[in-house]
């Protein structure tokens, strides 16, 4: 572990640097609090609603996928370092392993777990609306509106209008 000695020294130095900066700022900076200044910044508008406590589930999905793929990568490193020593056996083993992980990526993509943006509809493809309510012209042409591109998530779990006041 002796190799980590300079790393430890730099870690202490960096933390000290930040601490000393904060202390210096405390001594040098003026303190002049007003209610407006200490409110959340919203470009001058008085903040009406709490920041959302819930997030699109996609972000959690990405976090979970990251765990899968990061473990795969860490698993690949020892093999990559010793590739030629492990020979054909190692190569085939890692091929099977990668195929499994790749298959799970394909599955996730096919389930739409990694779709983020608005639905892109190619002009070449003829589309038939299932019911008459769908605004096909709006989607197909350049006259796209928020109604056609933004998926509404609803107000479930949000604060009721007027309840926060």
């Amino acid at each position, binding site marked *: 572990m002796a*190799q980590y000695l*300079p*790393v430890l*020294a*730099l*870690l202490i*130095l*960096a933390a000290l*640097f*930040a601490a000393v*900066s*904060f202390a*210096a*700022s405390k001594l*040098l*900076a*003026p*303190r002049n609090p007003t209610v407006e200044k*200490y*409110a*959340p*910044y919203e470009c001058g508008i008085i*903040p009406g*609603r709490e*920041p*959302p406590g819930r997030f699109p589930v996609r*972000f959690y999905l990405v*976090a979970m996928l*990251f765990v899968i793929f*990061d473990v795969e*990568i860490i698993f690949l490193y020892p093999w*990559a*370092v*010793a*590739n*030629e*020593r492990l*020979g054909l056996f190692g*190569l085939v083993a890692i*091929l099977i392993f990668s195929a499994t*992980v*790749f298959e799970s990526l*394909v*599955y996730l993509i*096919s389930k*739409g777990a990694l*779709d983020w*943006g608005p*639905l*892109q*509809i190619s*002009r*070449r*493809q*003829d589309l038939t609306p*299932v019911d008459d*309510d*769908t605004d096909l012209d709006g*989607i197909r*042409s350049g006259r796209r509106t928020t109604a056609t591109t933004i998926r509404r998530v609803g107000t479930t779990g949000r604060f009721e209008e007027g309840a926060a006041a």
Partner: protein
Amino acid sequence: MLSRSASLTNGHFFNAVLAAGDPYLGDGSVDLGDVILAIAKAIIAFVVLLVAVMLMVWFERKVVSRLQNRIGPNVAGPFGILQTLADGIKLFFKEDIIPTRADRFVFQLAPYLALVPAFLTFTIIPIAGDFSDGQNGAVTIFGRETFVQVADLPVGILFFLAMSSLAVYGIMLAGWSSGSKYPLLGSVRASAQAISYEAALGLSLASVLLVAGSLSTNEIVQAQAGEGFGGIIPRWNLIVTGLIPFVVFVISGTAELNRPPFDFVEAEQELVGGFHTEYSSIRFSLFFLAEFMNTVTMSAIIVTLFLGGPAGPNFGFLPGWLWGFVWFFLKLLIFLFMFVWFRATLPRLRYDQLMDLGWKVLIPLSLAWLLLLAAIRQARNGVWEYGGSAFNSTLLALAIGTGLTVIGVGLLGLAIRSARDERLRAAGLVAVAGVSDSGLEGED
């Protein structure tokens, strides 16, 4: 490098991997002199990093203004070179605001979590040393043999990945603890982006490990310092790994740094200032410092992994280790300029384009390239044989690799189409197969 390690038995190999590291700390005993040298190295690295960041901020502002037909900072010091220092001192005298809705403890902790990993990543970078003629780049100071880098960790590259993951905590917690909506949105975006691109970053890195056969940065540089192809073209990993890992690494490195065109963290039109909207005074400047430090360090990592770091010819008349620094610095400048150039030239992507690029292009591409590279290297070096010669077995590896790639691309395309169709159905639209160009072309 490879012929040497290939002749070792497995037991020796793993001992060799574990024994990698700075020679002065490698002999099992640590005396007072070693500790002093370690601390001295840390202090020098600390000062060098701060000065480098100061110059980097100035360099970026100056180059961007030139690219935009402006003059840029030119008042503080010659060519405005002290502008960053002036800004830093000014920020000490600004009021430090902790918003009332903020979580005070985490709000104050977050700058440390951003700054400390930024400092620590730099420890694994060899910045000088003589690597010509098979030397290992060691210099002798006060009778102690050492590398010109803060620490040569046996797990060097893993340490880099660990630190870049840790830096995400700083961003995430800064946004979460602010108690305001724009920082929160910015930080969630930033974390999703950073972890998405970390996968592509790690996979492209694996190709370098495959070629160098080590995780230690010093040995990765040594592996690139050998006799070049045809005596002229250097044996850099850029060429040895076949360019694709380099390109993937630069793209995902830019995304990892949250720099343009991937700077969604600070997309000011959408999110005000991103995760540090609520930060002011010196707290803000520490985030800023960490960001630019990461840019410098990432450029240095690219140079180390793909362009041979300080390895280069020794023309004499200067001490050998100084030539290493000259080469390192010149290569570093290329990438620093590249990052600034990106910022001046490329418009910001859309968030879904960013996620698509990472997950659907870069990750499969770098995984496929890694496996292909491994198979070809095994075939060429005679680990297994088919058809009597290394050439034939390479051909076989290429053929199987191409076949598997075609299957993989086909599967990916199928998956993307099926996801699209599913969304069309959900949107109340059904794709009718087989009908195309039905008069919609000339509509606008």
